[in-house]
C-alpha cells in the first residue's frame, strides 16, 4: 500500500463539501437552497420534493416548526431574510408577494395584518393578487428554483420516514447527520454490501463502516507487531541517510511488510548511550528476509551498538482516509464522475451510452507486440464504451492490451489519462509498457517510497524533478545538491526548496500524457487539482470498491477495469468486514449487475499441457494457447517427468501436517524434504535458481522450506538462497519457468483450509511456463470437488506418481468421493 508524505496534512476533498448543501439530499445549487433562519438551526434545505409531498425546505419548517428563512448570497436576490416589506414579519407561512399596480415592482407582504390594512389600497399596490410564498407545499419556484432532474437524481434519495427520524434526532443533537441514523451499534454485524444502491449516500453508509472495521483491525494488528532483541547492521545510503538492516521475523500470513512501511526503531539505552528512537521507511526487503530501514533523522543514532533494539510498526491511516474521502466526494460532488458512471456504479438502470469517438485505423500501438484478435476486440470495444470490464486470465497479455488502450485514449485528446492498480508492482509494469508506446508517462510514487528502488525509476516524478534541469543555473538543483551533501537545509532554504520542488512537480505532471500511480496514490494531494476523464485500473479485481473509487472520483467519464475475478480478490484481514462483502471487488459487482467482461482468450505463458486444466475448470474451456509445445520445451533439462511432453506431475505425499511454532500456521516436513529434492534435481539438470519458484499456501511451510533447503540442500547453499519461496497469494500476477507447489494439508478429518478456495488453486496452477510439480496428499485433497477433478486429470494423464524421484511410479492411491467442505 501506498501512503502519502509526512510533511503534509491533507484534509480530503476540503472545499468540495459545501456548507449550504441541503441537509436532506445534498443538493447545493445556491439558487435552489435556503437557510433556516432559526438561530439554533441554521441548516440549509433545497426546494425539491424528492420522494415526499412537500419540498425539503417546507418539510423541514413543518417538522421542526421553524418559520424563517434566508436566501443564499449567490442567489438572484442575494443574502436576504424573507420578511414583510411593511412590518418586517418573517414568518414564511404568512408571507406572499404583491405587485404594484402600475409597474413591474413586487414586494413581500404578510397576510396578517398588512394585507388587510385599508390604507394600502389607496396606494399603488394591487392587493387582490396576493401570491403566497409557499404554494402547493413548495416555495415559489421563481424565487427558489427547484433543482433540475439531473441534480435530483444525483442527490440522496431521502424518504419521508428518514426525514421524520432525522428531525427527531436534531431536537437532541442538532449536528446529527443522516449517517448517524444508520450507525450500527458496537456489537452489531455491519450491514452487508448489496448489489444496488439508492444513492451514493447509501453506498457510503454501507462501505464506510466496513473500511473503518478494516482500518481498526489493521491498526491493531500492526501496532501489536513490536519486536524486541533485534540485531542491527548499520549502513549509510547514497543520500547520506542512515540505513538499519535487520531481520524482522513475521509469524503468519497476516502481516506482510512492504517497502514504504514506516517502522520505529528503539534503543532503551545503557551506561554509555542514552535511550534513543527514530522513525524510518522500509526501502528494501532482501530475499534473506532482511529489512532495510532508512532513518528519517541521522543525528544521535547509536551506530556503535548492534544488539538489543526494538522495532514497532507505525500505523498510518492515509489509505483508509483516502477511501473514505473518495466515497464522500462520490456522494457530494456531482462533478466527481459523469452521471452515467454515477448511476451505473450504483446499479441503477441506465440507458446504454456509446462514446462518440473516431476509432483508430489500427488498434495496436507503437512499441508493443502485435495484438491478437481478442485483444483487438477488447481495445476496440473499450474505446466506444463509458464503462468496460476486461477479464485477463493468466498470461493473456492484459498489460499489453491495457497499454494499447491507454495509448489510443491519450491520442483522443481528452486530457491526461489516469492509470492505476492496487499494487506498486503492477503500476510499474504498466507504466513501462505505456512508456514504450512513446507517450509521456509520469509514475507518481508515495513520498514514503521515493527511496525504494523501482524498475521504472526514470519515469517517477521524483526522478524527473531531480533531472529536469541539472544545470548550474537551476536553483532547485543547487538546493538539492546542498541537501544531499549536508543532509539538511536551513529553514529558509528548505522553504524555498519545497516551493520550487512543488512547482516543478506540477509542471512535469501537467505535461504528461499519462499519470500512473496506485489506486491509493490517486488520492495524493499532488493530484488534488487534476481531473481525469479517462481512467484505467489494472488488477481491479484485487482492490476493494472504495479503493477503486479513489482514482474514479477525479472526474471520470470513461472507465476501464481490468482484472480477473477467477483469481484471488483483495486481501481483507478483518473477518467481520470480509463476511459483510468488502472482499468483493467493484469489477465483480459490475459483472453481477450484468456488465459482460471482455475476455482475453489467448494465453502466452503456460505449456499447453499446463493450461488445459485451468482453461476447462475456470474459463469454460475458452483459453487458447498462444505458445506451442515446442516453444515450451527446454532442451537439455533432464527432469523425470512421467510423460515426455507433459511437464507436470502430482507427487503423492503421505507425510503428516503439523501446527507451526507460532501456533497459527501449518507445515509438513516430508513435503519440505521432497521440495528440496525436486529443487536439487532441477538445479542439477541445468535450471538456474531464478527460473524456479516454490509456492505454498502456508507461511509456516514457507519459512520451514527456506530454512530446510539452506541447511540440507546438497548443492551450494547460495543456490537455494536465490530460489524464491513464497505464498500463493504473493505470486499472483507473476510467473516462473518451473513451479513447485507444496499443499501441506494432510489431515483426513479436517478441511483443507486455504486450498479450498478455487481462485487460489487457479492462481497456483497458472504460474508456471515450462513445468509444474505439485506435492500433496490425494486422499485428503480429493474430498474437494475441484481438487478431485485435478487429481483425476493428473491420473488420467499418468502424471500422478509416488516413490523416489529417480524411480517414480504411477500411484494407485484411492480418491475419496468429493463433497462440499466448508472451512
Amino acid at each position: 500500500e501506498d501512503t502519502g508524505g509526512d510533511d503534509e496534512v491533507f484534509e480530503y476533498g476540503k472545499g468540495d463539501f459545501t456548507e449550504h448543501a441541503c441537509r436532506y439530499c445534498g443538493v447545493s445549487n445556491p439558487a435552489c437552497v435556503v437557510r433556516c433562519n432559526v438561530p439554533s438551526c441554521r441548516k440549509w434545505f433545497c426546494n425539491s420534493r424528492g420522494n415526499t409531498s412537500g419540498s425539503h425546505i417546507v418539510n423541514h419548517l413543518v417538522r421542526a416548526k421553524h418559520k424563517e428563512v434566508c436566501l443564499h448570497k449567490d442567489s438572484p436576490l442575494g443574502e436576504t431574510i424573507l420578511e414583510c416589506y411593511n412590518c418586517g414579519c418573517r414568518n414564511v407561512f404568512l408571507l406572499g408577494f404583491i405587485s404594484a399596480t402600475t409597474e413591474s415592482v413586487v414586494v413581500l407582504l404578510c397576510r396578517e395584518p398588512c394585507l388587510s390594512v385599508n390604507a394600502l389600497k389607496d396606494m399603488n399596490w394591487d392587493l387582490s393578487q396576493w401570491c403566497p410564498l409557499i404554494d402547493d407545499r413548495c416555495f415559489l419556484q421563481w424565487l427558489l428554483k427547484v433543482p433540475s432532474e439531473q441534480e435530483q437524481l444525483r442527490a440522496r434519495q431521502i424518504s419521508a420516514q428518514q426525514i421524520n427520524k432525522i428531525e427527531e434526532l436534531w431536537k437532541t443533537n442538532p449536528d446529527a447527520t443522516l449517517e448517524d441514523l444508520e450507525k450500527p451499534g458496537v456489537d452489531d454485524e455491519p450491514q452487508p454490501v448489496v448489489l444496488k444502491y439508492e444513492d451514493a449516500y447509501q453506498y457510503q453508509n454501507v462501505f464506510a463502516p466496513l473500511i473503518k472495521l478494516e482500518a481498526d483491525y489493521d491498526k491493531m494488528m500492526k501496532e501489536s507487531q513490536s519486536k524486541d532483541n533485534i540485531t542491527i547492521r548499520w549502513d549509510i545510503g547514497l543520500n547520506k541517510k542512515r540505513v538499519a538492516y535487520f531481520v524482522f521475523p513475521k509469524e503468519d500470513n497476516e502481516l506482510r511488510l512492504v517497502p514504504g512501511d514506516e517502522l520505529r526503531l528503539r534503543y532503551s539505552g545503557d551506561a554509555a548511550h542514552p535511550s534513543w528512537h527514530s522513525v524510518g521507511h522500509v526501502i528494501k526487503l532482501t530475499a534473506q528476509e532482511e529489512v532495510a530501514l532508512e532513518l528519517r533523522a541521522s543525528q544521535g543514532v547509536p551506530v556503535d551498538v548492534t544488539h538489543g533494539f526494538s522495532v514497532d510498526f507505525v500505523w498510518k491511516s492515509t489509505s483508509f482516509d483516502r477511501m473514505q474521502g473518495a466515497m464522500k466526494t462520490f456522494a457530494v460532488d456531482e462533478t466527481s464522475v459523469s452521471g452515467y458512471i454515477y448511476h451505473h456504479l450504483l446499479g441503477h438502470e441506465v440507458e446504454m451510452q456509446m462514446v462518440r469517438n473516431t476509432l483508430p485505423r489500427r488498434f495496436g500501438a507503437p512499441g508493443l507486440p502485435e495484438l491478437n484478435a481478442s485483444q483487438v476486440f477488447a481495445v476496440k470495444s473499450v474505446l466506444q464504451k463509458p464503462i468496460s470490464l476486461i477479464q485477463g486470465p493468466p498470461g493473456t497479455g492484459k498489460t499489453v492490451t491495457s497499454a494499447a488502450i491507454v495509448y489510443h485514449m491519450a491520442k483522443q485528446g481528452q486530457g491526461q489519462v489516469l492509470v492505476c492498480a492496487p499494487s506498486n508492482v503492477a503500476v510499474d509494469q504498466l507504466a513501462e509498457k505505456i512508456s514504450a508506446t512513446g507517450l509521456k508517462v509520469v509514475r507518481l510514487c508515495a513520498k514514503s517510497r521515493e527511496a525504494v528502488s523501482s524498475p521504472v525509476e526514470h519515469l517517477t516524478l521524483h526522478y524527473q524533478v531531480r533531472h529536469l534541469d541539472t544545470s548550474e543555473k537551476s536553483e532547485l538543483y543547487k538546493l538539492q545538491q546542498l541537501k544531499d551533501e549536508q543532509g539538511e537545509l536551513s529553514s529558509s532554504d528548505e522553504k524555498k526548496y519545497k516551493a520550487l520542488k512543488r512547482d516543478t512537480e506540477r509542471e512535469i505532471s501537467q505535461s504528461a500524457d499519462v499519470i500512473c500511480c496506485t489506486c491509493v496514490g490517486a488520492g495524493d494531494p499532488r493530484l488534488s487539482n487534476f481531473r481525469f476523464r479517462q481512467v484505467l485500473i489494472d488488477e481491479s479485481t484485487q482492490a476493494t470498491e472504495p479503493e477503486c473509487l479513489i482514482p474514479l472520483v477525479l472526474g471520470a467519464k470513461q472507465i476501464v477495469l481490468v482484472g480477473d475475478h477467477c483469481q484471488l480478490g483483495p486481501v481483507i484481514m478483518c473477518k467481520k468486514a470480509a463476511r459483510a462483502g468488502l472482499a468483493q471487488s467493484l469489477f465483480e459487482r459490475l459483472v453481477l449487475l450484468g456488465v459482460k467482461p471482455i475476455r482475453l482468450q489467448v494465453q502466452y505463458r503456460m505449456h499447453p499441457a499446463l493450461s488445459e486444466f485451468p482453461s476447462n475448470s475456470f474459463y469454460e474451456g475458452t483459453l487458447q494457447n498462444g505458445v506451442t509445445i515446442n516453444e515450451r520445451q527446454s532442451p537439455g533439462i533432464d527432469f523425470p517427468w512421467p510423460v515426455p511432453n507433459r511437464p507436470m506431475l502430482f507427487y503423492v505425499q503421505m507425510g503428516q501436517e503439523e501446527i507451526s511454532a507460532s501456533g497459527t500456521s501449518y507445515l509438513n516436513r516430508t513435503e519440505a524434504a521432497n521440495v528440496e529434492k525436486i529443487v536439487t534435481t532441477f538445479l542439477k539438470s541445468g535450471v538456474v535458481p531464478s527460473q524456479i519458484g516454490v509456492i505454498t499456501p502456508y507461511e509456516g511451510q514457507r519459512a520451514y522450506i527456506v530454512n530446510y533447503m539452506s541447511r540440507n540442500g546438497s548443492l551450494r547453499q547460495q543456490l537455494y538462497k536465490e530460489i524464491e519461496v513464497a505464498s500463493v497469494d504473493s505470486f499472483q500476477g507473476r510467473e516462473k519457468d518451473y513451479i513447485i507447489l507444496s499443499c501441506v494439508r494432510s489431515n483426513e478429518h479436517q478441511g483443507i483450509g486455504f486450498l479450498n478456495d478455487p481462485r487460489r488453486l487457479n492462481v497456483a496452477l497458472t504460474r508456471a511456463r515450462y513445468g509444474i510439480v505439485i506435492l500433496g496428499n490425494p486422499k485428503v485433497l480429493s474430498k474437494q470437488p475441484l481438487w478431485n477433478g485435478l487429481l483425476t486429470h493428473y491420473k488420467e494423464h499418468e502424471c500422478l506418481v509416488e516413490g523416489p524421484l529417480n524411480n517414480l511410479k504411477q500411484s494407485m492411491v484411492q480418491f475419496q468421493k468429493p463433497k462440499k467442505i466448508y472451512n
Partner: protein
Amino acid sequence: DDEVHVRQKVAEVDPLEVADFDRELRALMQESLDSRKLELRSRPTINMMIPMNVFEGPTKEHHHGRGIDGESGDETIDEGSGGTKEIRVKVLVKRGNKQQTKQMYIPHDCSLVQSTKQKEAAELEE
C-alpha cells in the same frame, strides 16, 4: 455534456404521510395567523412607499442592466428556460432601512402580474 437517461422507479408518495404532513402544515399556517391576530390588534403604520428611482423608466436599465443600488441583477436572467415566457420584475426589499431592488423573472402566467399586464394591454389599445 453529461446527459444520462436513468430508468427511474416512480417515487411513490405514501398517502398517509401526505395526509399527516398536510395536517401539520395547515396547523402551522393557522397558528401563525392566529398569533398575529392576537398580537397585533393595533394596526401597523404603513411604510410602503415605492422609492421614486424604481420608476426611472426602463431605458436606464437597458443601458447597463443594473438595479438601482448598483448591484448586478444580470445573473438572475434565466434565458434558457424553454418556451415559457417570462416577465421581468423588480423585487423590492429592505436592508435595514435601505431599499433595494433586484431583477427577477417570473412566469408569464403568474397571477401576480396578470393585472399589471391587463392594464398595460388596455393602455396600449388606447
